[in-house]
């Protein structure tokens, strides 16, 4: 009887997760069109920039990096979502992670693709980008970035694909007959002849385990070397030994916030309430709180150590950040991504999910601002006896930024139509493994009440 009941759970799981792949609403098409329009506008801005050069941007000789670098750090930051959830939680055997892993890994892959584009858009001679391979020097932190980001992207793609194989095979078997010939062929090809034999399963588990272990150091290296682009220079605010871990923690922090947002969106539109429960939001909220506190600690330490000594250039920077032209941004970061989210998570009043999602949205807004106040003010501080530099992003930079965010959502939305966003086999496996809770047993069996009594 138990076997029949579990099958009922599995069938419902398949139906819920597959339904977005087979049914598309008009709203979805409208949304995709809107996103494509924004991406196209961003492309137009980029073409304008190619034509007239970076003079189209607000950057000039003193503040020579701008929004593109801010977006770069931001996107690479949220790419740490995948690593944390799927790799660290997998290695520590946290069973509750299973419905979240696919989305987390997808955030990683898409954020890396968009983020890695940003420095290329920032180049004065993008057509010479292959020089990085032809004449690359490993003494340059930029080359470290390229090596780590491409490794991370490759690793994440493999890590996204491996747990997809059983699900693709399932799609081949369940949806193959009803879908178009191209889709059928795609499913058959990508399933790699998966028959769910014990040997295949054993090998897959092993491969996933190896990837989970491999990807953690790669991910940490990625944001460390992103920070090295800044901390290898003799600039106030950047010339810091704590930057590696500061960036890594910031990345995991905004990564978790991104997962929460994505989870909430797909939970609502794809009706995944049964699998993405309040528990998942609560647990991720705790993780977010942990990283928030570490980030707060590091931020405090970072500014106290330079603020206590007040070297001339550091003093200029602190004045600029806390009292001067960037003070509004800096304090907005403190309020939106540290104080309010902290209160939202700690004061457990009202429903969990809206609280966590509000906190997550605020954190991501605040962390974007934080990346802005890391990159820009350090460049504004004069290193020679002249005035503070000025920087106002132009319409080109804002358009390309909007295009990048739209591209991120667009790739996500398209993927969500092609592949299941919840790892079906892992969730089913976890459901089998786990001792069923009273409520679940009651729900799964037609005769639930006697079971409850027996307990």
């Amino acid at each position: 009887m138990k076997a029949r009941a579990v099958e009922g759970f599995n069938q419902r799981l398949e139906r819920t997760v597959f339904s977005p792949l087979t049914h598309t609403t008009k709203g979805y098409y409208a949304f995709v069109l809107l996103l494509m329009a924004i991406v196209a506008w961003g492309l137009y801005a980029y073409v304008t920039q190619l034509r007239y050069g970076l003079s189209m941007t607000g950057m000039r000789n003193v503040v020579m990096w701008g929004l593109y670098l801010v977006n770069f750090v931001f996107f690479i930051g949220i790419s740490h979502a995948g690593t944390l959830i799927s790799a660290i939680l997998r290695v520590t055997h946290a069973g509750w992670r299973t419905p979240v892993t696919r989305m987390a890994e997808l955030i990683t892959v898409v954020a890396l693709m968009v983020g890695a584009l940003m420095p290329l858009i920032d180049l004065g001679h993008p057509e010479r980008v292959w020089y990085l391979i032809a004449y690359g020097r490993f003494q340059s932190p930029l080359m470290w970035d390229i090596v780590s980001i491409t490794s991370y992207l490759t690793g994440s793609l493999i890590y996204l694909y491996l747990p997809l194989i059983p699900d693709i095979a399932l799609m081949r078997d369940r949806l193959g007959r009803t879908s178009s010939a191209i889709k059928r062929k795609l499913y058959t090809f990508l399933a790699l002849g998966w028959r769910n034999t014990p040997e295949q399963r054993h090998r897959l588990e092993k491969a996933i385990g190896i990837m989970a272990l491999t990807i953690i150091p790669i991910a940490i290296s990625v944001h460390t070397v992103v920070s090295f682009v800044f901390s290898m220079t003799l600039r106030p605010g950047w010339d810091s030994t704590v930057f590696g871990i500061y960036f890594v923690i910031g990345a995991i922090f905004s990564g978790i916030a991104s997962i929460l947002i994505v989870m909430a969106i797909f939970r609502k539109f794809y009706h995944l309430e049964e699998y993405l429960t309040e528990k998942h939001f609560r647990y991720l909220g705790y993780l977010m709180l942990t990283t928030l506190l570490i980030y707060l600690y590091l931020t405090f330490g970072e500014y106290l150590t330079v603020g206590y000594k007040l070297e001339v250039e550091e003093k200029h920077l602190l004045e600029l950040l806390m009292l001067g032209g960037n003070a509004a941004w800096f304090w907005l970061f403190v309020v939106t991504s540290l104080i309010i989210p902290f209160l939202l998570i700690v004061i457990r009043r009202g429903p969990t999910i809206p609280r966590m999602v509000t906190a997550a949205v605020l954190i991501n807004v605040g962390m974007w601002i934080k990346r802005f106040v890391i990159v820009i003010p350090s460049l504004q501080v004069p290193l020679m006896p002249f005035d503070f530099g000025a920087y106002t992003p132009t319409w080109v930079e804002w358009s390309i930024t909007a295009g990048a965010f739209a591209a991120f959502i667009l790739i996500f939305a398209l993927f969500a139509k092609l592949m299941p966003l919840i790892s079906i086999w892992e969730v089913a496996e976890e459901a089998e493994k786990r001792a069923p809770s009273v409520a679940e047993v009651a729900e799964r069996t037609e005769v639930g009440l006697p079971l409850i009594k027996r307990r």
Partner: protein
Amino acid sequence: MEGDNKGLNRREFLKKSLGAAGLLAILGTPAVPLLSQRKASASAPHSASGNKKAHAWCMVIDMKKCDGCTGLGVPPQCTQACIMGHYAPEGMKWIEVYEQKLPGGGRFFQPTPCYQCENAPCVNVCPVAATYHNEDGIVLIDHHRCIGCRFCMAACPYQRRFFNWGTPKLPPEAALAEYSPLYPVPAIKGTVIKCMFCAHFLRDGKLPYCVAACPRKVLYMGDFNEDLASNGAEVVKLSKFLDENNAYRYKEALGTQPRVWYLPGHGQEFGREAEDPRELKPTVWPWADGSYERRRGVWPWKESDIWTWEARPK
């Protein structure tokens, strides 16, 4: 099946160990040139290069004689000659004269070319070796190699590097110049540019534009290998000249080892008082049209219309 699994293990193991070896190699690489560079600079600039024939160029700036050309009522002539000689794009002062404060309330003037640092942060960070030391110790840029990432500008602690944000407006004769990293004219859009000690002149035994143009003979071009320096009017023994005039380097503590030495002063040799109120005169770019600070607007059919977010043309 057991055998199969072992095979898989071995493959994975080999893959992983290859990856680890690669990672080690990557991590190890940067240390090697950095260490060797440390060594070269530790043995003092006097023997910066083992090659006896090579020069070891440096500049000595005697600020006892510099009044920023305020006494003459003209823009700083070093900067102006540099702009004219290199057809420098608008807004770029490869050698800029800064006004600095003295402790008693007076001021002095500090000409700042590129310092051609021996432990040059810009050269260290360039991902494609577009900026490099030549055999005479000058930091050059290959503008056909530069990808325009501006990492060198972020790394330079003296802000002595400039970027060609757009196609610079230059006089027609600039197009006749034959480009070389020694004489980067005409400037190329999307690349970084800076002072290169007029390396093309030094090669031919001539003095740079700024040195030759300075009316007060403030700037000396020196060569550590010959231990001589000249401002065009006199030749001095370099080591003695530095010692006897309390020479220092700007932001010495950074460890960048600049090749530019300053002799402290405020123009007293020409009778300038420290409290002299006369200001620096602005330099001019005769070919400039203000396009440097302008940005084009959104609509392509309004191309001639120049629209700015800030700094509208006055």
